[in-house]
């Protein structure tokens, strides 16, 4: 692999051929839908890494420097998805579903903790995958702990949800779409009002990225029938590992439920979020390799690596309690009308204020 990367003229066709071969193999051996989902995931990874579209970084930029460009791009992408998703869900009930989940104490608390942890490692759900694929060692270390945390959070999910939750509240139809777009616009106005002078613009690359991410998210919805998500797949990987090590998951209301028990038996190459997760990592790898992988790894103190592992665990666990991460709850929740997405946004952003202050204390500011 090193020899290939060292020669860009050889590397680029090889990278594209490798990605296409992976998509073709999955389509051939698992099914066309699953090959398409891997391709969509590769697209997500390429756009997020290639155009530097993210979630944790822009929130940090807004909190520390009052730069609104990244958040505005997120709001644009969410609005674009909503314009397509609301009518799709209304016209095709059953075939197409949204990211509907209940608002509750554990949900809001989980989002707050997730917001803090994602600022510690500067990687959210999608960001951790992209960082790992691009060779960022912090992302690479956080990823397996994220998976373990997601598995454990799902194991305990029903206990946490039992602490108190509202019924699932979803905005629907044209009225729901108009309200969602209005709320997104209102948040954009607030963000612009708080922005530092001279920063009130969205870079062209982020506008392009927002449009591409939105197109891919709608593609995910049309192909799989469900919105873009991340954490379910990660928890499934760890759950399969636990079963292989002899764990009995029959005591977990979550993992023993028929749908989840069936997915534990099935190949991960037929799991929707696994395929887009694999694609995210692969797409980020492709772009990072295309650019060159000569960047030196950061020299971080031991406490920073320990903090990364702990933050990974916390990211996984809290995202399950919150019914999703920045992707499944914030991005997909809001864009498909679930009110828990808005609560996630508020709680996650509040948690990010804590996270940006924790990060230097944990020795992670020295990253290269």
């Amino acid at each position, binding site marked *: *692999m090193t020899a290939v*990367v060292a020669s860009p003229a050889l590397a680029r066709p090889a990278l594209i051929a490798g990605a296409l071969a992976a998509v073709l193999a999955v389509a*051939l*051996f*698992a*099914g*066309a*839908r*699953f090959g398409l989902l891997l391709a969509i995931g590769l697209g997500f990874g390429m756009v997020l890494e290639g155009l530097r579209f993210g979630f944790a970084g822009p929130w940090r930029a807004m909190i520390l420097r009052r730069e609104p460009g990244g958040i505005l791009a997120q709001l644009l992408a969410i609005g674009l998805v909503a314009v397509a998703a609301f009518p*799709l869900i209304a016209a*095709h009930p*059953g*075939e197409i*579903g949204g990211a*509907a*989940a209940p608002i509750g104490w554990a949900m809001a608390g989980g989002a707050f903790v997730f917001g803090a942890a994602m600022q510690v490692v500067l990687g959210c759900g999608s960001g951790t995958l992209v960082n*790992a*694929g*691009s*060779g*960022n060692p912090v992302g690479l270390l956080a*990823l397996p702990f994220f998976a373990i945390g997601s598995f454990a959070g799902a194991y305990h*999910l029903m206990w946490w949800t039992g602490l108190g939750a509202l019924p699932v509240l979803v905005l629907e139809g044209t009225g729901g779409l108009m309200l969602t777009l209005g709320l997104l616009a209102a948040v954009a106005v607030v963000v612009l009002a708080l922005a530092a002078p001279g920063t009130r613009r969205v870079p062209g690359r982020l506008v392009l990225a927002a449009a591409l991410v939105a197109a891919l998210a709608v593609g995910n919805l*049309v*192909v*799989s*029938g*469900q919105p873009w*998500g991340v954490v*379910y*797949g990660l928890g499934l990987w760890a759950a*399969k*590992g636990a079963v292989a090590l002899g764990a009995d998951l029959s005591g977990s209301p979550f993992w023993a*439920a*028929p*749908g*989840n028990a069936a997915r534990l*038996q*099935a*190949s*991960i*190459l*037929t*799991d*929707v*979020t696994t395929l887009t997760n694999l694609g995210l*990592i*692969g797409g980020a*790898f492709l772009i*990072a*390799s295309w650019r060159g992988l*000569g*960047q030196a*790894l950061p020299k971080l103190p031991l406490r920073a690596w320990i903090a990364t592992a702990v933050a990974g665990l916390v990211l996984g666990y809290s995202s399950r309690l919150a*019914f*999703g*991460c920045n992707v*499944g709850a914030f991005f*997909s929740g809001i864009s498909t009308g*679930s009110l828990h997405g808005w609560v996630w946004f508020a709680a996650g952003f509040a948690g990010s204020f804590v996270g940006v202050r924790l990060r230097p204390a944990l020795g992670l500011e020295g990253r290269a």
Partner: protein
Amino acid sequence: MTRRTTAPLALALLGLLILFDHATSDLNPYRAPPMLALGSGTAAVGGFCGALPQ
């Protein structure tokens, strides 16, 4: 050390995950759902982080 070590390591770990999974479960493209959920007439049944267990 550079990212020439860690980026391929990420892919290698994914490869191991897929190999491990393949050893414990089967793939059958003839049981696969239609290519697109939209218009398929079948309910979406994939796992999702927002879904409570049924």
